């Protein structure tokens, strides 16, 4: 177990940011922390990094108690913060070199690592540029490079892809998988469920400082009733119709709002067909129709009763 968090409680005044959080991260995995804004992801990471005081609980990393002066543990950790943290006064290459230098003393080795990191985030053309002149996305990439240049054993990434365009985002996500293949364990937080689903081997869903569900994305989806969500747009329905649809087999939740019908069904086949058959039999016209397999959003929705993203 590379990280073991037990009963972690963190309060900001009267606000409980972490509420008896329990987590375990295994060596070699990409562990996703998924949760809406303010669910306590960043707070959890800052506690693990020994930056924040916490009220109760324990955090062990590599089997050791984490403390601000536990340099042995710290030397094997890399961090990509949610806020960009680079020196305005240093150019891209020097920034990476500086942060790498905090971990790696040997000059030649560092040079190699910096070079690798520059290529990793695709900033080859921007080596001598100062952060002020980088666009938001490029800045994010620099931020990532600064955190991972020294090839740490454990990497914390706190929403590293905010404001990065989809193409670079994919590149970064691939890079993260590559880092993982090279042996780094990664703790990745995000509120983009697609991202988390794409790369994480295990996911913890957080809400109000608690871990409300944990498992692989398959496991999480199997946890819930929803097997399929059918959405039909531009359809005019009476109360009676809704009641009839609700009675169809496998349907467990029907909502109707602004002419859009959303039907959630348990994982059986032909759900869509049955609903459409009903509409046709009643000669009710309808617009676009689509059917989705469950997403992590459904998991979140079913557990908390609210959308992961609004």
């Amino acid at each position, binding site marked *: 177990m590379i990280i073991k968090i037990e009963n972690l409680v963190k309060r*900001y005044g009267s606000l409980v940011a972490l509420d008896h959080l329990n987590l375990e991260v295994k060596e070699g995995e990409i562990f996703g922390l998924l949760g809406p804004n303010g669910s306590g992801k960043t707070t959890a990471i*800052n506690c693990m*990094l*020994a*930056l*924040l*005081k916490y009220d109760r609980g324990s955090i062990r990393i590599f089997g050791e108690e984490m*403390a*601000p*002066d536990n*340099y*042995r543990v*710290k*030397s094997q*950790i890399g*961090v990509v*913060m949610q*806020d*960009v*943290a*680079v*020196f*305005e*006064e*240093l150019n891209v290459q*020097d920034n990476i*070199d*500086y*942060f790498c*230098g*905090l*971990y790696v003393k040997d*000059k030649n080795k560092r040079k190699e690592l910096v070079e690798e990191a520059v290529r990793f985030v695709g900033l080859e053309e921007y080596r001598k540029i100062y952060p002020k002149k980088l666009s938001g996305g490029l800045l994010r990439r620099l931020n990532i490079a*600064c*955190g991972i240049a020294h090839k740490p054993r454990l990497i914390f990434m706190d929403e590293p892809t905010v404001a990065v365009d989809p193409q670079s985002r994919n590149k970064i996500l691939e890079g993260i998988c590559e880092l993982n293949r090279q042996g780094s364990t990664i703790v990745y937080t995000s509120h983009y469920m697609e991202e988390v689903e794409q790369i994480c081997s295990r996911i913890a869903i957080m809400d109000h400082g608690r871990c409300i569900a944990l498992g692989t994305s398959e496991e999480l989806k199997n946890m819930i009733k929803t097997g399929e969500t059918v959405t039909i747009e531009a359809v005019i329905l009476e109360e009676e119709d809704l009641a009839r649809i609700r009675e169809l087999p496998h349907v467990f939740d029907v909502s109707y709002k602004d002419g859009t019908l959303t039907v959630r069904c348990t994982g059986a086949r032909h759900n869509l067909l049955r609903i459409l058959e009903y509409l046709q039999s009643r000669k009710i016209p309808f617009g676009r129709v689509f059917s989705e397999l469950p997403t992590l959003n459904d998991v979140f929705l079913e557990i908390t009763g609210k959308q992961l993203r609004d």
Partner: protein
Amino acid sequence: MLQQLKYAFVVKIRNFSIVFWPLLFPLALTTLMYFSVGQMDESDFDTIDTAVVYEEVQDRGNAENAVTAQKSGNDRFLQYLTAVEEDSDLIRVRQMEDEEAVKALEEKEVRGIYYIKGEDLSLTVSENSLSSSILESLLTGYEEGRQTLENVMKYHPEGLDEAVKMLGEYGTAVEYVSLGGNTTDTTAQFFYAMIGMACLYGCFIGFGCALWLQCNLTALAARRCVAPVHRLRVILTEFAAGFGIHFVNVMILLAYMKYILRLEFAGSYLSMVPVAFIGGMFGVAMGIFVGSIGKMGEGIKIGILIGVSMLLSFLAGLMNPQIKVWVDQSIPVLNRINPAAVISDALYCINVFDSPERLGQDMIILTAMCILMVAGAFLIVRRERYDSI
């Protein structure tokens, strides 16, 4: 370590506001002061009128000896004074009778009276000022020289001629010859306090360093806090870089005083460098310390620094030298622990008093406070976790 130091330097130098305000502000203030105070006093410094009074030697029974003594001792002193008079415009000597001299002193026609009574020499002055210090040091200079002379006569009579010649150049008094037009006592005090303030202004550089040490203040610091670098090392690196830059700042100020404003102090500029060195070091250390204490925000701490450095400089006589005199008299200990006052005191020692012991004491006080500040900062940020980031 070297790499860290290099980047610490680069980052600070590129950070205009942090480095250059502590440079520009004292420069600007010095210039303003130069035009308001410096020039006003320009004509104030005059040759010091001095009276010399021969007193009767009372011991009649030993009259013959006394006369000899008068010849050897007193005439030599008068010769010495005359030599100084001819050599420079420092003093103007007049021989007077006792009452006449006292009256002249009261009416400020002369600034001091040398009494010559056989072998005994004494000095009476009416006020404590630069002129009296000069007269005093002429006397001590002579007396130290006389000792040498007598030793030479006793042990190496053959070198006597050489020794007498040396006597004319002996002592600290000669250094005052270099005292130029526009730094009289009070004005010089202003500039000493100014240099003191410039040193303290290093606290803003130090404060910048502290910002990069504390993870609740900047994201950058947070990233450094998670790195496996010993806190003391981080602090010392920042301190070294901050001090390196600040020392250059203070040197620029001194150079500006010397080459542009052409202010002349009694002592050489070179001898003021060590004071600037330690003073500047203290300034940076103070900034790091204040930056590290407590969990208040950046704005509040900057406010504290501005307030503290202003107050300390004020007490050290920056706005009005009388304040320093007043503090010295009523709460002397305050100015022994007020770094601004200690710095300006050290400069005063170099230029006016020529008192190596007191200078040494000043330097020790500054160094000790400096170490205390850095150690304090280290203890504070060593294991620090924050309540909120």
